[in-house]
């Protein structure tokens, strides 16, 4: 009997305590936690990254004008952390197009936060370099020019 009374009192107290808070909790912003499941990535995403670039890009002959424009953008937005021939804050980029597709590089530039959260290759790089790739808020056209510049660097190296 006493136990039942004690239990009733405790429950009543808990109800009262909880009742005071009143409001419902809940997150209506619809933000999701970082998905770490590779299964959700498409084959295209695994090969070319996650981001606004959803079709693969081929660079056969370098457009020197576009490459020059890319060089300028690279200097302002990327050169503080990337060098061509050596690892710096981030990986060396002289041979990046041997390892990654142009679309992958563009998605890394345009969606670095999403890439390091969801893409296994980008996650590996973050673990290695520790400094997350900053989002420099470039547009697709600018990212495309940077890739053209990187292609021109590779071309010169292989000459």
């Amino acid at each position, binding site marked *: 009997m006493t136990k039942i009374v004690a239990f009733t009192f*405790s429950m009543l107290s808990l109800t*009262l305590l909880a009742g005071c808070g009143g409001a419902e909790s809940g997150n209506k912003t619809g933000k999701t936690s970082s998905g770490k499941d590779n299964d959700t990535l498409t084959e295209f995403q695994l090969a070319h990254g996650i981001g606004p670039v959803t079709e693969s890009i081929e660079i056969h002959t370098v457009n020197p004008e576009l490459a020059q424009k890319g060089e300028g953008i690279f200097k302002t937005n990327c050169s503080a952390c990337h060098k061509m021939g050596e690892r710096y804050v981030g990986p060396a980029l002289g041979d990046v197009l041997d390892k990654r597709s142009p679309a992958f590089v563009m998605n890394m530039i345009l969606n670095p936060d999403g890439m390091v959260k969801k893409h296994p290759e980008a996650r590996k790089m973050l673990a290695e370099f520790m*400094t997350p790739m900053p989002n420099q808020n470039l547009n697709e056209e600018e990212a495309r020019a940077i890739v053209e510049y990187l292609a021109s660097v590779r071309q010169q190296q292989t000459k």
Partner: protein
Amino acid sequence: MNKKQSIRWLGLLPALAVFGLTLIYGCSSNQEFSSYGDAARKVYVAPGEYDEFYGFFSGGYNGQLSVYGLPSGRHIYTIPVFSQAPVNGYGYNEETKAMLQTSHGFVPWGDAHHPELSQTDGVPDGRYVFINENNTPRIAKIDLKKFQTTEILEIPNSAGNHASPFVTQNTEYISAATRFSIPIGSEKDVAIDSREETFNGTLSFIKLQDDGNMKLDFQILVPGFDYDLSHAGKGPSHGWSFFTSYNSEQAHTLLEINASKNDKDFIAAVNWKKAAEYAAQGKGTMIEGEYLRNYIDPETHIATTEHHSEVRMLDPRELPGMIYFLPTPKSPHGVDVSPDGELIAAGGKLSTVIPVHSFSKMIDAIENEAFEGEVGGIPVLKYDAILAGEVKDPGLGPLHTEFDGNGYAYTTAFITSEIVKWSLETFEVVDRIDTYYSPGHLMIPGGDSRKPEGKYLVALNKITKDRYLPTGPELFHSAQLIDISGDKMKLLLDFPTEGEPHYAQAIPAEKVMHDQVRYYRLEDNKHPYAARNESEAKVTREGNVVHINMTSIRSHFMPDNIEGIKVGDKVYIHVTNLEQDWDVPHGFAVKGANTSELLIMPGETRTLVWEPGKAGIFPFYCTDFCSALHQEMSGYIRVSPQESDVEIAYGTGQ
């Protein structure tokens, strides 16, 4: 009860204790149990969600402007305005020092009272918030795209810039008036007891020009009373502004007795459209008046000072029809215009009623010349001819009134610590609620505009006492959020505020949140010492002046090793933040610098001046935790004796 039974009942004690404690502490004591659950729901903003309103609360003697979310009462930002702010280097760094320049030199502190949102068609529009500095008369303009002070205009021929700043219906003008009358003109060295003969007040009208810059258009010379608060007319009364005055006795000592003798003081009703016409026609006199205008150049982000030496003064004795006095009992403080522009409520702080004047009756009285006399060339209208009604029993010490847009006004009663709600039709008090304690201003979002959002009211209290955990002799001021959506006012929330919020204004978040600057584009950075990429980083010496153009990005500086600095050098360290993303500021501090840190927004350049007094190795580092390798974001500067021959050398990663 036998021993065994009592032991068993003792087992109940913890449960009983919890129950009892729940009753005592689980919910507060002075309202119904369930109503606090309702109140909590009304002010609860779930994690990740936003408040409905931005609230801008003046910081009073901290000289800043605090931003709170409403209804949660969460403090979300503080905008540095009139005081140096070491938190981000405002007023310390080379780019913003000039913002605090005045005709009295550099003034590192200010007393900020009344935030005022810019309006379009009598409704807050979310472009700017203006705020006054009371002590060294100034008005600041804050750009709500950046939440930054971008312009500060000094007001000449003024002292105690209290009735300030109040905007006209379309922010054509921002007005200001003198709380302390002083000698105006060239003869300023006079005996204090000559006040009645030699002191005057001024009303200033500042034009907001099409380019967004403020320009002091004209001043009006008025009798030497103390002008206290103001509001512009709207709707039918658009074109007029109203200023309360007290100390019509013109006492110069022991004002608490000597300035409280007259039964009535005055509200000055100013036809500013008429005055602006006079000014545009070149009427009045250009008189001496030294003042500065400081503004942030939008391209370089560097504050620049403009010097002015004279101002157009309009004298009502020579230019009729500009200004009339409305007799108002008794040392009126606030003056507030109803949303329809017809009623002008005055908080007579020593009065037992709230007098409410009628704008249309005022116009009739002016046309019929229903004058009871004249003071300093200004006609005094007959009280009975302009009165719309008196609110009886409004509590003691009525100060300020705002409106809900549903036919009711709300007035603070300072002495009796309450807010009274009264009808704009019957002038009868219909509800009252206690506040904790002694409210000065109150605020309803849009509550002084044509379109109040009559949902919440915030009481801005002067006395805190026992509201929060005690913090020694000094306490933050308390504010209370009150639900005014129903017939009865209901207390929802009690929250502490920084400094002394004299007044506050609030605006629906929708009008401000979507147009925020998140970072500055590097290519638009026109700072003369910007290093827009690492190859532009350099160290240059000109005599004993050294300029270091430095970059910062997660997580290193360029250069991070610098040699060749000498004792006696003046070192300008210009740091550009190369990040191009939201919420990635970098900081900069160097050991022993006699100034604050820098906090540099993405894409921006900020400059710290350092005059090393000792030889040695001086580390510098990023003060804003920016990345996993933030602790690595550091460097060394070698300072050599004055006579040494160490050459300038610098780099990163070499």
